[in-house]
């Protein structure tokens, strides 16, 4: 499998799969951790502490600031599992790691069938490193 760690770290939590991509800027409130995009089908959902499945990124580059701020505040997802690489999400999570030492591992799975299979599980643990990437249901 060609999955890649974009931002390293360990995390675990309940899986939340987004039906469609979300722009963190304008679509997510870093103070509450909730989806505030009124046009998103999961409007109102709380993303805090989840292992968030999102196909790809979306929207303004200011999304990186919003994600970093949410990680600082503890309202962000525990981990973000993408299908394809995304520069804005990677940047936001990396900056939070750099500034606050808080990990929000970001992974690109690169294989739709595998990504969908994982997103259907109730809980996952993520161990993302440069050499080793493990995503499993927690024991």
């Amino acid at each position: 499998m060609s999955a890649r760690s974009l931002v390293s770290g360990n995390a675990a939590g309940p899986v939340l799969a987004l039906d469609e991509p979300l722009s963190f800027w304008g679509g997510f409130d870093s103070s509450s951790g909730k989806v505030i995009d009124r046009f998103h089908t999961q409007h109102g959902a709380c993303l805090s502490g989840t292992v968030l499945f999102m196909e790809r990124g979306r929207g303004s580059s200011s999304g990186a600031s919003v994600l970093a701020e949410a990680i600082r505040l503890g309202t962000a997802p525990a981990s973000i599992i993408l299908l394809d690489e995304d520069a804005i999400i990677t940047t936001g999570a990396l900056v939070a790691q750099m500034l606050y030492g808080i990990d929000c591992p970001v992974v690109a799975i690169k294989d739709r069938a595998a990504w969908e299979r994982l997103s259907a599980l109730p809980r996952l643990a993520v161990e993302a490193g440069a050499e080793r990437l493990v995503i499993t249901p927690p024991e």
Partner: protein
Amino acid sequence: MELSTTDHEILDGDHGPAAADAMQLVLRFAEAVGAPRLLACASAHVDGCLYHGQASLDFVERFVALKGRVKVPTTLNVGSVDLIHPELFIGDAELGAAGRRLMEAHVDLGCTPSFTCAPYQTLLRPRFGDQLAWAESNAIVFANSVIGARTNRYGDFIDLACALTGRVPDYGLHRRENRRARVVVDIDGFEHAGPDQAGGLAVAAGLFVGKHCGDAIAAITGLPRSTSEDDLKALGAAAASAGSVAMFHAVGLTPEAPDLKTATGGQEVPVVARLGPGEVLKILKNLSTVQDAAALTAVALGTPHFSLSEFDRLMPMLDLAPFAVPVYINTGRHEYEQLSRDGQAQRLEAAGVTLVVDTCTYVTAIIRDLSGAVMTNSGKWAYYAPGNLGVDVAFGTLADTLLSAKAGRVVRA
């Protein structure tokens, strides 16, 4: 990724701890976008001065603490406050203070205190073919389209990281093969339009391209010869507001499009729309949230920041003063100094014009009375202000806005 000797040196800390830190970010970003290498960056334009929360400030303060300095000429986009006229800011004092510190901290890193969204007008005009790390959507489109310099849509954190390393990832619009037009939008029936009409048309064309072409680069044919650089600026700003546009070609007007064949790289590309006077009028009409004759509380000009040539066009219209409502014009502090030197700033202020520098009336609390509609000649202002400020908006040409300022309601030239 293949790293150069310079890249390794930066990463190993030979250029200081701030550059090494920033390099980590640039490399991870480059990996995420699939860039095979980094390029030398000629300049950066950083959009880090608008406060999005504590993380915005912590990021730049970290590099200040590490004694970082930008490695290439770096201009700054607008901030939340007008540092030259701080009394104009009427928002929350704590936010104002955080916004001010954010602006100062960037200057501590060696960034030029330009605080303008149009650095290309006077301060830092890139050359054709320069590789840039620019943020701010209108500046990105202008640099790519009107100048022929090369940048992707950079933004939060990564713009400053590129400035601190002097390196930029080689992908997207940095590469020639990705800069060709993939669709054509044909404008019909405006061959003989005058300068005022050309301004409105440019906004309509920009909004259309933004909404319907997305990230497919459009070649726009049929824009009148009277289309000025200011109009192309307005076109790009409108396009980047309505969609994720990073570049367009105006055939016969922009440097990579002397003719349609060059713009498309000789490939057949579909004509996705033909816009005549009827369609253009409809697009512009949809931009207003009020009808003609509606009462106004202000006129807002200069989004993107007003250029000296726009001031030249405006000056004769000051004969209309006194105005019934305040006229706000955003501009860069560099332009403001020029206007002050030659006495135009004083003439404008005497006519009831408020000159706003370092910031913009659509991103911050400046306009005092928002109880009625605000009129603008900016597609970008009209697109964002209703959401940002909760205000009604009327769109018009420059001449329309000044006549309306005098009348206190929406009238057309």
